[in-house]
């Protein structure tokens, strides 16, 4: 088993900041999930990397990334991360022991499941698509449209205990879950290590450990990142796509802007979180903006008519890997995404969801439609694909820590 290796190993940091410290091999050992430091080539690299220390936790951050903001009630520790990684990939977290978090959040698919809508452990089909966990630690609200879910630990209760739909299917069975985990020798070591003051297996310790693991799922080594750091040059087509993406002609960046390629973002030291919900004109069932039940977006919570169909714009990082698209997986390819936005809203000619999303009264003022030449369209797609971080989806620190095939999915 390989010790965790910084993906920034050997890269020269070109944007050093005052608050960063040069990492030592010791610091990396403290971080490493397997705690198997002690020699070998694998730990030589970090001598050259940069690791941000926040609250005594050594983040392995891309050189131009701030650290995620961490809730005060759940400080980061390497032990919690290691425990959370085990739990994330543990099918004992589902009632019938067939699914783990990773069943719907598959690393190779940037922690999505490649399905239009998620399927739970008992076969229930979720009304919405499994969201990518890319850089979730930078998200101040966590789901497609629920403004109340602001911490990863709290959010974890929903797949575990939700019943409409059933996801992991643990509702009413938490004692059974605790007993299963107590029977696992690895957890007898990991829970006391993560929670030395109160090494109890309960909902709080389980969810906070999973949250700690999710918070390190940081992606910042796409071609676009490398180009921003001056390490590579984008292709001509990618550069054209970038210009189009950030143009007032396409308006993509208004909702998908910033370092995280979503307007909804937060990080340690930021003055305040930014939270945005937008209607992008996918539906208009009744001419007054109605979306298909039960996917009403922000309206479900605020019950303000203008919030019907308003959803969070997800990060576009790794978007190539997270098809199909939109909150309900109703758009299959990036090409079709561009069809949707170029028309300024989707027309559904017939069927129960018939309607013209272009005339949805709640539609974002930035979904105005545009025309692209074939070359321009390819350039935009090339640019979006340049947001793929191949190191992120292959990073062994984020992978299944259990013996192959034993507990996964």
């Amino acid at each position, binding site marked *: 088993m390989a010790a965790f290796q910084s993906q920034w190993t050997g890269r020269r940091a070109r944007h050093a900041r005052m608050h960063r410290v040069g990492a030592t091999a010791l610091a990396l050992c403290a971080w490493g999930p397997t705690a198997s430091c002690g020699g070998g080539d694998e730990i030589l690299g970090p001598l050259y990397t940069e690791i941000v220390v926040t609250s005594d936790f050594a983040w392995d951050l891309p050189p131009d990334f701030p650290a995620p903001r961490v809730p005060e*009630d759940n400080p980061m520790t390497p032990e919690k991360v290691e425990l959370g990684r085990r739990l994330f990939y543990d099918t004992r977290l589902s009632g019938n022991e067939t699914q783990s978090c990773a069943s719907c959040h598959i690393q190779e698919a940037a922690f999505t499941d490649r399905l239009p809508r998620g399927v739970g452990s008992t076969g229930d089909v979720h009304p919405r698509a499994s969201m990518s966990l890319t850089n979730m630690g930078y998200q*101040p*609200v966590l789901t497609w449209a*629920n*403004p*109340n*879910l*602001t911490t990863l*630990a*709290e959010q974890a*209760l*929903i797949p*575990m*205990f*939700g019943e*409409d739909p059933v996801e992991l299917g*643990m*509702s*009413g*069975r*938490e*004692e*059974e879950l*605790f*007993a299963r985990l107590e029977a696992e020798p690895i957890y007898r070591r990991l829970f006391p290590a993560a929670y030395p003051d109160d090494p*109890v*297996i*309960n*909902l*709080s310790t*389980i*969810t*906070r450990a999973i949250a700690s693991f999710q918070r390190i799922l940081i992606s910042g080594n796409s071609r676009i990142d490398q180009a921003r750091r001056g390490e590579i040059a984008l292709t001509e087509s990618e550069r054209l796509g970038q210009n189009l993406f950030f143009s007032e002609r396409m308006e993509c960046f208004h909702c998908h802007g910033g370092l995280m390629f979503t307007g909804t973002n*937060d990080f340690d030291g930021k003055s*305040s*979180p930014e*939270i945005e919900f937008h209607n992008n004109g996918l539906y208009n069932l009744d001419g007054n903006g109605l979306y*298909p*039940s*039960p996917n009403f977006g922000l309206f*479900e*919570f*605020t*019950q303000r008519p203008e919030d019907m169909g308003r959803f969070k714009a997800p990060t576009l990082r790794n978007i190539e890997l997270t098809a199909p698209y939109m909150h309900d997986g109703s758009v299959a390819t990036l090409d079709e995404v561009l069809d949707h936005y170029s028309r300024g809203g989707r027309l559904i000619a017939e069927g129960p969801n018939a309607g013209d999303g272009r005339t949805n009264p709640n539609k974002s003022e930035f979904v105005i439609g545009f025309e692209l030449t074939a070359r321009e369209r390819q350039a935009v797609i090339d640019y979006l694909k340049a947001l793929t971080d191949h190191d992120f989806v292959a990073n062994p620190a984020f992978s299944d820590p259990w013996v192959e095939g034993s507990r996964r999915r």
Partner: protein
Amino acid sequence: MKSTRLSTSFSRIRPHSFVALALVLTASAACGEDDPIAPAGPIDVAINFEARVNGASFACGTRYSNVGTTSSTIELTDFRFYAHDFRLVAANGQETPLELAQDGPWQLDNLALLDFENATGACGNGTPATNTSVRGTAPAGDYVGLRFRIGVPFELNHQDASTASAPLDITRLFWNWNGGYKFARMDLRRPDALEGEAQGWNVHLGSTGCTPTGDRTAPATSCANEYRPEIEFAAFDHATNAIVADYGRLLAGTDLRVNTPGTASGCQSFPGDADCPPVMNRFGLDYEGSVSSGQTFLSVN
């Protein structure tokens, strides 16, 4: 197996509950009667509840016929609800709060969980222990009536469920998606449902339309629909009366064969659910223009 689960539960996360359990078991003997030789002061009050289906005592595993507008046969899979803000009412209308015993498993602050299922039969996802009374103290006085609310008070409803104390640690009553709890959970299945009919029908009462106001990173600070019905009995003697919770009466206006397509199973308090008006009205709640003429779910025995 069930008792093992219960004991491990208590030993793991509720260390004081053995004491609390003993209190629960003895409470009925100690409450509800004035002791003539005791000095004047607070009196013990126990408000007893009975669960029924159209007048018949409720038990997990029992089937009940003639429920709803089309005489369905049903078997319940859950029967629990939270209640809070108990007030004893004097003849002049003055309210005196009932101070609830902080017993560990069932009562917290002014909140109590009434739990009529015992995890047997079709109630397998429930808890073996039941709780059919609310216990507390009040100043000695001449009380003629009772008022309380169904539900979890706002101050307790929007906290971190993963660290919440009993009785707010019941995952079956979590409603995290709405940032709160299910105030009432009464689920049923229809063993002789025909093809195309609803196989089950669930009543989940809880606040909906909850959203942060102002700082959207803070927990829910208001709910468009509170759905905490105020219950009032003008004549209620805690020493001799009990409160009957009748699921059959709650469903008296409902056709249990039908669940409106595209809506949650039964009525789960969400907006735009045509299955909700007859249920919500019988809780005493108005629902989207359907005005309640008074609750009929609870009555005094």
